């Protein structure tokens, strides 16, 4: 008993470490981005052609250096987080909600509903992504809301397939049958018994998708399908800095680090959330 208690308290400690680190990284980035207008009233737009490509840690005015147009990298990284984080987080939340709902319905009710939804998902997966993006955004026009909307429409399929697979295994489990035997209705079974048990993999997929979508936004912007290319974003800065990688690494490395730390923070928070949702603590090993 004592051994088990020691083990569980050690684990709880580790979990809280994950929480603290995760909050520090992702939360810190979020706060900085939230107050970017206050910190950098110019929006990272002001150019100083006399101060082009200053290396980092050399000037107090530009602690992370400047880019080829003499813009402050630190300001642009913080301001750029606005677009990147908004797109990354909201597209993932939207796609997760839609996909999970569809996956739950398809996996739980089976039959014709499942065939219809899953074949539709298959068709969507078979279409080339960029082609659809061009068509879609050409019709809707560009802008951050359209980009998010497009990503939700394009990515719900992954969540739907993942959730449906888990539900298929879960619905045969005895505790679901036992809930039905007691007289619990379908909707209640889905939300109180099925959903909590499939949340683990969903949370993991979400944290991975955030990084993916931050980069995706820059690809779309590069193609002229995304946000106004003049507004800074992490993905966009990465792409712009690529040509200077050999001479001025800091232009692309700092936005890259911003993505990395944010995603790492979100991953840690995701792990923490998953363990919080699982009282047995089995998935942590």
């Amino acid at each position, binding site marked *: 008993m*004592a*051994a*088990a208690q*020691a*083990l569980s308290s050690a684990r709880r400690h580790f979990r809280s470490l994950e929480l603290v680190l995760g909050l520090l990284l992702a939360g810190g980035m979020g706060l900085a981005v939230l107050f970017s207008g206050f910190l950098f009233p110019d929006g990272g737009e002001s150019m100083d052609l006399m101060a082009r490509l200053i290396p980092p840690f050399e000037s107090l005015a530009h602690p992370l250096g400047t880019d080829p147009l003499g813009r402050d990298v630190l300001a642009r990284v913080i301001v750029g987080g606005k677009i990147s984080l908004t797109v990354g987080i909201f597209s993932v939340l939207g796609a997760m909600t839609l996909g999970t709902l569809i996956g739950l319905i398809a996996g739980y009710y089976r039959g014709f509903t499942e065939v219809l939804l899953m074949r539709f998902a298959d068709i969507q997966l078979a279409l080339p992504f960029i082609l659809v993006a061009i068509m879609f955004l050409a019709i809707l026009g560009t802008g951050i809301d359209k980009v998010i909307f497009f990503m939700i429409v394009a990515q719900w399929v992954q969540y739907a397939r993942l959730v449906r697979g888990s539900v298929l295994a879960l619905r045969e*489990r*005895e*505790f679901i*049958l*036992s*809930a*039905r*035997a*007691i*007289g*619990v*209705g379908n909707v*209640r079974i889905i939300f*109180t*018994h099925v959903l*909590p*048990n499939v949340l683990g993999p969903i949370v993991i997929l979400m944290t991975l998708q955030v990084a993916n979508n931050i980069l995706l936004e820059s690809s779309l912007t590069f193609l002229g399908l995304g946000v106004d290319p003049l507004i800074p974003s992490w993905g966009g800065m990465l792409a712009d800095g690529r040509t200077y990688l050999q001479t001025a690494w800091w232009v692309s490395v700092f936005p890259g680090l911003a993505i990395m730390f944010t995603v790492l923070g979100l991953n840690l928070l995701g792990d923490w959330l998953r363990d919080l*949702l*699982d*009282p*047995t603590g*089995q998935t942590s090993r």
Partner: protein
Amino acid sequence: MYFAGPVPLQERGWMSDTANRQSQALLSVRSLSVEFGTGSGAFKAVKEVSFDVQPGKTLAVVGESGSGKSVTSLAIMRLTDYTGGRITNGQVLFRPDGGEAIDLVKASDNKLREIRGNDIAMIFQEPMTSLNPVFTIGNQISETLILHQGLTGRDARLRAKELLQKVRLPDADKLLDRYPHQLSGGMRQRVMIAMALACNPKLLIADEPTTALDVTIQAQILNIIRDLQQEMGTAVIFITHDMGVVAEMADDVVVMWKGEKVEQAPVRDIFSAPQHPYTRALLSAVPRLGSLTGQPLPKRTPVMVMDGGVAKPVGGTHEQNTADYTKPILEVEKLTTRFDVGKTFFGRVTHRVHAVEEVSFDIYPGETLALVGESGSGKSTIGRTLQQLVEPTGGTVRFDGRDMAAMSHGDRRRLRQEIQYIFQDPFASLDPRHTVGYSIAEPIIVHGLINDRKARERRVHELLEQVGLQPQHAKRYPHEFSGGQRQRICIARALASNPKLVIADESVSALDVSIQAQIVNLLMELQEKRRLSYLFITHDMAVVEKISHRVAVMYLGQIVELGSRQAIFENPQHSYTRKLLSAVPIADPQRERAKMRIEGEIPSPVRPVGQEPAIHRMREVEPGHWVAIETDQLRGAA
């Protein structure tokens, strides 16, 4: 005596002349300790266990879950190395040729590989998972032969065929090219035995080899192991929790409890004069077929429960006179349930599982009706149909006089309040993500029985106390409880909506015997307090005898015999009932061992569309005792 004719008891004794025997022992385990985990989290699974295995003899290692019996067997082969365990102390001395002893604890990996499968072979509990699904049976048996005996592919195949014939598998030639999934559980276990015996091992370790099998199949497998042992002179370590199997198989018995050996004696002495309190408690909990002979009603009897280091009796003797035979609460008439399997490309059904065929029975208030049968008999399907988890194909079910088919949607939902279901596996039937308190409150919430939060909480606490748990357990999660406690939680959950009928589907089968006896007593006590009716679905005849008022025996979807408990057990009429009764291992080593020889598999209930099974006609042999008239087809099968 079943091996080499009568041997005087003294000669078989462990205590006599120990030093001399030790030198001849095939395997001597000396103060073996096994630990899992490290540092402060280390868990001692086996503590200082010693025993000897004599050549050609059977040593049974008995214990309940967590006793360390399986870990001990794995440690002998050093397989604990692969499951995260460490042997911290002791020796395992193995003398393959009666000469020089090898200490397996210190032996090199190469030496161990040479011994495993060759000198010492093992059979596991789950024949479903211990065969590789992508290789044919022939390939898998040949593998061992090629590896250890250096046979060529062709010779190995010939020898594999011989081995399959030895374990009495018909059509050995064809079987060699089959894949594991094409075989039944009993056939797979025979293949496992054939593989284990491929190299004429000196020692066979069988870890619960028949636990997952039906009783009639179990009886066959036990016979095969016994016969082959006699023929080949193999020593056997038989690990089991079933005292009946021990009585049938063992020469000597080691009883394990909480990782320690608490007793060791020849099999007769264990049963006739158990020394350690735990052994006594274990034996008192074992349901014995025939223990209620001559008594019309089922009976609660006290159970010995270990409290600290002593066994204390719990509960009293009480006759279960609860049934009221004026008006049935449930009437089932010609109930039929079939499932479609196998469809053509265009969706036309080609085969159906005839799970239940025209089954009729009644259950009266306060009565326990046992539904007995082996896998595929349709007993669980009946329970699930009554609970509306499965749609019936035909027939009528009346509950409290109302026809279920004519009920409105709301009425049918309410029926789920009055009929409750307890599942077999208490580990699987509770949602791991909710507290136990929530799980118990759920039926109250969904049926809107108590809407006040505080009152609901009080009710949950009350229910927990009724099943022998504490109110503060409500806040915990299922994984924090043992199997027996979880089954108590499931019972509390089933009682939460004040049902009139409880369907218990193999509800005590997965539990250790001492826990099983307590749960059976709890069910009977609750029946008396609340006038509950039970439909008790099980394959275990000994438990049936203890708990039921009436018994229905099922075979291939139909009832073949229905009558009072006394009639079924003391005057069985149908040949299948008799076969089932004779297959049950009896926890009494004094009894004649080789009884009725049972052969044959249980036929499949899957039939092509259009081929309906013949419906048995029943005749009443004495009031209330109905027996199916046996046709040649059935007699041939049974």
